[in-house]
């Protein structure tokens, strides 16, 4: 395995709200290596965005409390003074969002938004910075970049804006890119173009990517590794092949089974996961999934299972997954993989 880029350990993010303190991210640990694309999936509200925004420390520090460690290049980012944190953002770690307009500045040209940080952080001359801007726009597949570099965000179409935002984030050659649902609002034919682009850039620039999505199809297509979140916790982590071939956690298994398929026999009925995701103020005491899990027993309701290492590439947070799989598939769980 290549060098560790980011190492998150037992991260907890608490928000102070009118209704008291809520813990949106609750004991999350993972590692990202150089050059790998790691998917973070889960349903709305499970804590994907809070996890990524915590890494960047984007929340108002009076409203939030972090616990744990976020190690980047060997330093714990949670100990950085805010000034130092600001230097990391948009430089060594960059982020892109679902809505490009929210992170592109409407009053500056695309070119200026790319060139500015280059002149500021990387001491480039104006001419050099603009040349680089044109290069980056071309790299992201924007047609006639020499012309587009002088245009404003509103002059671009949805797909082009998303590309422009990617160009802006790439300007400082980040080591780590966090992409929060960057294709969710796009049409599938445009999404296909952007996913291709992300894959290319990842290969060319060797940056690590955390790719947040709720679309398991996108995960299967783009990611090397996946982490599945449920109600503030990672419940399963695996390399992408084995996650789909043999999901271990009852939630992951339910999720994969419930998506309508594009190939094979059409089913007369879809499988479902019963009930709804509980709210943060009403979290089950034991296993977070116990209110919806068909295998929940006394122990599940009382005690929270730890994220257990199942094999080199797999982790799972469930008391009974081995018995469940043995029963459902009539076989054993292979401890080894890949």
């Amino acid at each position, binding site marked *: 395995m290549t060098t560790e880029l980011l190492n998150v350990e037992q991260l907890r993010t608490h928000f102070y709200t009118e209704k008291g303190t809520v813990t949106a991210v609750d004991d999350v640990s993972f590692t990202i290596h150089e050059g790998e694309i790691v998917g973070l999936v889960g*349903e*709305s509200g499970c804590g994907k965005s809070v996890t990524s925004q915590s890494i960047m420390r984007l929340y108002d520090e009076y409203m939030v409390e972090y616990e744990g460690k976020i190690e980047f290049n060997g330093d714990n980012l949670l100990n950085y003074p805010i000034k130092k944190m600001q230097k990391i953002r948009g430089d060594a770690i960059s982020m892109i969002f679902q809505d490009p307009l929210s992170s592109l500045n409407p009053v500056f040209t695309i070119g200026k938004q790319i060139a500015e940080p280059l002149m500021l952080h990387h001491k480039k001359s104006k001419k050099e910075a603009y040349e680089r801007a044109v290069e980056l726009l071309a790299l992201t597949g924007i*047609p006639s970049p020499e012309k587009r570099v002088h245009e404003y965000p509103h002059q671009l*179409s*949805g*797909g*082009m804006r998303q590309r422009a935002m990617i160009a802006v984030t790439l300007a400082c050659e980040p080591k780590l890119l966090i992409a929060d649902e960057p294709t969710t609002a796009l*049409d*599938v*034919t*445009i*999404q*296909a*173009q952007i*996913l*291709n682009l992300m894959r290319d850039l990842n290969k060319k620039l060797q940056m690590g990517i955390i790719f947040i999505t*709720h*679309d*398991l*199809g*996108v*995960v*299967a*297509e*783009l990611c090397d590794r996946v982490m599945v979140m449920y109600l503030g916790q990672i419940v399963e982590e695996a390399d*992408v*092949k084995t996650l*789909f*071939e043999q999901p271990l956690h009852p939630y992951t298994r*339910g*999720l*994969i089974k*419930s*998506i*309508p*398929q*594009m*190939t094979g*026999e*059409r*089913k*007369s*009925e*879809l*499988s*479902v*996961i*019963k009930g*709804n*995701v509980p709210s943060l103020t009403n979290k089950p005491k034991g296993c977070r999934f116990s209110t919806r899990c068909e295998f929940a027993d006394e122990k599940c309701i009382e005690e929270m299972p730890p994220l257990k290492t199942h094999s080199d590439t797999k982790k799972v947070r469930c008391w009974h997954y081995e018995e469940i799989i043995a029963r459902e598939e009539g076989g054993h769980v292979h401890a080894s993989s890949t």
Partner: protein
Amino acid sequence: MQAQHEETALIQVRNMKKYYQAKKGLNKLKGGNTYVKAVDGVSFDLRKGETYALVGESGCGKSTTGRTLLRLHDATEGEAIYNGKDLFKLSNKEMNKVRKDMQMVFQDPYSSLNPRKRIGNILEEPLNIHNIGNKSERTDIVMEVMSKVGLQVDHYYRYPHEFSGGQRQRIGLARALVVDPKVIICDEPVSALDVSIQSQVINLLQNLQRDLGLTYLFISHDISVVRHISDRIGVMYLGNLVEEGYTDDVIENPKHPYTKALLSSVPLPDPNVQRERVMLQGDIPSPLNPPSGCVFHTRCPFAMDVCKTTVPQSLNLAGNHTVRCHLHDEEIATDEKKVVNA
């Protein structure tokens, strides 16, 4: 799974157009009126008891088709024959009667649920409008429908904000069902829902259809959902219906280059499949100024000279499969090859 429905059309839509007038400023700029051609001559049958899906990318005119059919705004041209009458020519009074038969369910039912009203009152409202039953009969109907869609009795007294997305969609469905409609136009009914909730609502829609003999016009950009739920599919691009056929035929054997690109772009939840992808260049053109000839020619990997000038007509292929593309017109396609070879 392909249920064989009687091929009798419940509604026949013919050459339906809906043009929106573009913003004033734009008109001045261009001298005269300019129009957004949201729907530009669409024809299809909605057969009794089927689920007919309209798919396509955002802005291609799916919702406008549904809304025009329900006369939520006036059609620019065309007709929609229901029970021997053209819906677009009915007086408002006659149309109100028909509305009882045709209901609509939206992507985000929340925005259409009055936040200050209890669910019970919200659901009784359509019954009041259509003068159905007395007070106690209305309550009975509402209770019955609530149980059909999986809501509990005590939900009757709750307010919309107390419900999750999936439950709100059940409320939206219940509101459509209380007047005992024949047709429901479902506009992206599960697009805003999480996967685990989406499958609950899809199953519900299918069970209701089976039990109540409903006909669905199912509008969605999610092709795997459409593959699961629909009997037939119509593919839209820039206000045009470019392909239509039975679901399995369209999915397994798409004929139009756009359908091929669209299908091959859907990411599959299986990391072992490597697919050949038809990549499209660029973005969808503006419906303010759609391309001449075939509306798809600016992005089509197979575009020929004739495509820039001549609008392709709808061609009937075997098995009720229709397509609007010159490649399938033998005469033109061979002529064009001669031109290319010359």
